[in-house]
């Protein structure tokens, strides 16, 4: 009833190939965007921004990036945290070296720098696969974090080894530093999310994306039909790192403001983003968002319910959180290996037929 395609005729290839072929989806998508852009900024509070929305948006970009590499191109990476750190440190160096630069330029340049670093670390993927590649990217993770801790130039030789985001603006609106308004923080991240999700969607359904998926499904067969594995794998690494670098930069500049590399961009971050795409759904744009939302919201909701509502001790709730996330990962791997995205897909299939299934 709600969700039907009867009467929704397609008369051109463009219409047939659009991202949301069903009208209900299209309307829903535009309505969601309208709420996100036109309504949320007016009602957002500091708490909502820094506890839910900003981390969700930033993690969504990281998950999109990792999903391009792991979900679409089949190259397992455990280096996400390290590549996020590259983005953060690149933006820090740019912000301090060129104080006049606006934050859009800083963030996009950080993305490109990370893309270059990611492509360099992607070179071994031409020779090694599967678990061995995972170990190679793990080496990148540890090497990068070690380097940012060791080499003073990266943190401008500050005594504490920390990097702090100075106040910077976009079109006169402050987006970094402590005096940032919640809505500015949120909108700045949202613009990146919308643009990057649009790029990701269109890359993955075009030539490049098809090459990635061919490599993922069977690299030898892909090579035989004319896909250049060097190009496909390296572009996947570069594009993925671009996304991850932007999310790392935003994480530092907009969200945290001060970063200690070993703690913020450690191996746990790599695993967190990997869990996001596993729970959300490998090889799905929607899955990246769903996974990020799930893992950002879950601890906060548990805390709200456990501590604020039920008055349980804080440590019990923190432990429960670990137990529940662990159990959910096992549950998803067993029951729905394709993640939340697949659940959503099944729901849609059912809704199309509802209330008269076969």
């Amino acid at each position, binding site marked *: 009833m709600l969700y039907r395609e009867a009467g929704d005729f397609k008369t051109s290839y463009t219409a047939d190939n659009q991202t949301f072929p069903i009208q209900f989806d299209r309307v829903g998508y535009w309505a969601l965007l309208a709420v996100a852009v036109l309504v949320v900024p007016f009602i957002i509070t500091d708490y909502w921004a*820094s*506890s839910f929305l900003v981390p969700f948006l930033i993690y969504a970009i990281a998950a999109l990036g990792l999903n391009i590499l792991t979900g679409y191109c089949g190259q397992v990476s455990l280096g996400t945290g390290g590549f996020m750190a590259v983005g953060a440190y690149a933006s820090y160096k740019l912000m301090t070296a060129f104080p006049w630069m606006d934050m859009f330029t800083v963030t996009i340049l950080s993305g490109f720098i990370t893309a270059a670093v990611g492509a360099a670390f992607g070179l071994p993927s031409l020779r090694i696969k599967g678990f061995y590649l995972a170990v190679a990217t793990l080496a990148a993770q540890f090497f990068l974090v070690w380097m940012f801790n060791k080499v003073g130039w990266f943190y401008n030789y500050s005594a504490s080894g920390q990097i*702090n985001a100075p106040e910077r603006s976009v079109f006169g609106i402050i987006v970094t530093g402590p005096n940032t308004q919640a809505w500015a923080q949120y909108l700045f991240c949202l613009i990146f999310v919308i643009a990057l999700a649009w790029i990701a969607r269109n890359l993955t359904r075009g030539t490049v994306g098809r090459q990635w998926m061919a490599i993922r499904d069977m690299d030898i067969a892909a090579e035989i039909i004319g896909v250049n594995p060097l190009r496909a794998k390296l572009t996947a690494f570069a594009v993925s790192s671009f996304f991850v670098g932007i999310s790392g930069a935003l994480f530092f500049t907009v*969200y*945290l403001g001060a970063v*200690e590399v*070993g703690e*913020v961009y450690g191996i746990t971050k790599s695993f967190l983003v990997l869990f996001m795409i596993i729970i959300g759904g490998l090889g799905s744009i929607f899955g990246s968002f769903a996974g990020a939302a799930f893992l950002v919201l879950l601890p906060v909701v548990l*805390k709200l319910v456990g501590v604020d509502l039920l008055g349980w001790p804080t440590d019990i709730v*923190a432990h429960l959180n670990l137990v529940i996330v662990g159990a959910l990962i096992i549950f998803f791997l067993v029951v729905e290996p394709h993640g939340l995205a697949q659940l959503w897909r099944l729901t849609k299939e059912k809704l199309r037929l509802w209330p008269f299934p076969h």
Partner: protein
Amino acid sequence: MKLGTLTIAAICAAAPAMADLVYPSLSYRTGPYAAGGIPFADGYADYFTLLNERDGGIGGVMTRVLECETGYNTEKGVECYESTKGEGALVYQPLSTGITYQLIPKTAADGIPLHTMGYGRTSAANGSIFNNVFNYPANYWDGASIAVNHLLEENGGDLSGKTIALVYHNSAYGKEPIRTLEELSEKHGFDLSLLAVDHPGQEQKSQWLQIRRERPDYVVMWGWGVMNQVAIQEAANIRFPMENFIGNWWAGSENDVLPVGEAANGYKSLAMHNVGTDFPIYADLNQYVIDAGKAAGNGDQVGTVLYNRGFYAAMLAAEATKKAQEIHGVADITPAMMRDGMEALVVDEALMESLGMPNFGPAFSVSCENHGGSGQAKVQQWDAAAGEWNIITDWIDSDRAVIDPLIAEDSGAYAAENNITPVCG
């Protein structure tokens, strides 16, 4: 201008919720640093429970400790800060240098004071630039200098030709004392070797192998959490003489030495306050809190070093609150008033005596320029047979001639980076 309006906005937003005095406790009872976080959080909460039960709060207004679990993680720290600041939080004590760095600009924007007792950003001692951050009674650079002064005393005032190794947590926290120790090594002519230990610090074999090879005369440690006990165990394994091994005040609790057993005997650490339960206030604590079943956590931490530290932190916060009530003549104070109270805080022997905590911490006073207190500490030594810490020195002064220029330099750099004009004098 902007900061001012924001401060007012924050106060107005906080005002309706203030039926009581709210002290958020950004605690960590989970993760690799929980061994340190639990006793501190218990002590902090128990002191306020005691004030509520015995005195009916502070100045007639009940206190409320708002606990939020951070797991020593900066992201959760930010979430905790945002979720508690709206409740009228008077002062933040995050017990984490990483979270402190997050909160320094945020609290400045929101006009809420931050008290980082013996941790955090050392140059915040310059109250002229860090107007709402306090790190009395002592900071990391004091600690480094006090450790060196203690060694100077042991060596008849001469350390030239000696080697001191610093084993440090590879984070903002552990890196803090390096600058000071470098200056001091130049001044006193000892060699300094630096050994970083990565988070969480369970892996230290290579560092201690290096110590075994280089045989430094002394080892100074800047450790926290599980790192401390691993380091002391490794030191015992290579038979490093324990009396030449000095931890800072975050590497000197029962949790750090007990797992090593007999071998930890003689290990030294700095102490910013006294140890044990031999103070009159503990009788009240037993009567009103512990026997009444109102102790925080499991109630098994009373009297440990870090419990006393949490207790002490709460005492300083409560005294600052009293001071603020006195200055402004209102019982239900705002964060901005709390800041004034902290800046006017004077802790002397008479005050500690009247609180039932004679000679508990150093006597010090805070002023607009000096948010760092007296910068004194004692040295304590572990007696494994008796299972207790013994204070072995009197209050040791730090070398202000070295530290003050460093503080001026670092806080000046911060002021220049953030366009802050000094507010004092």
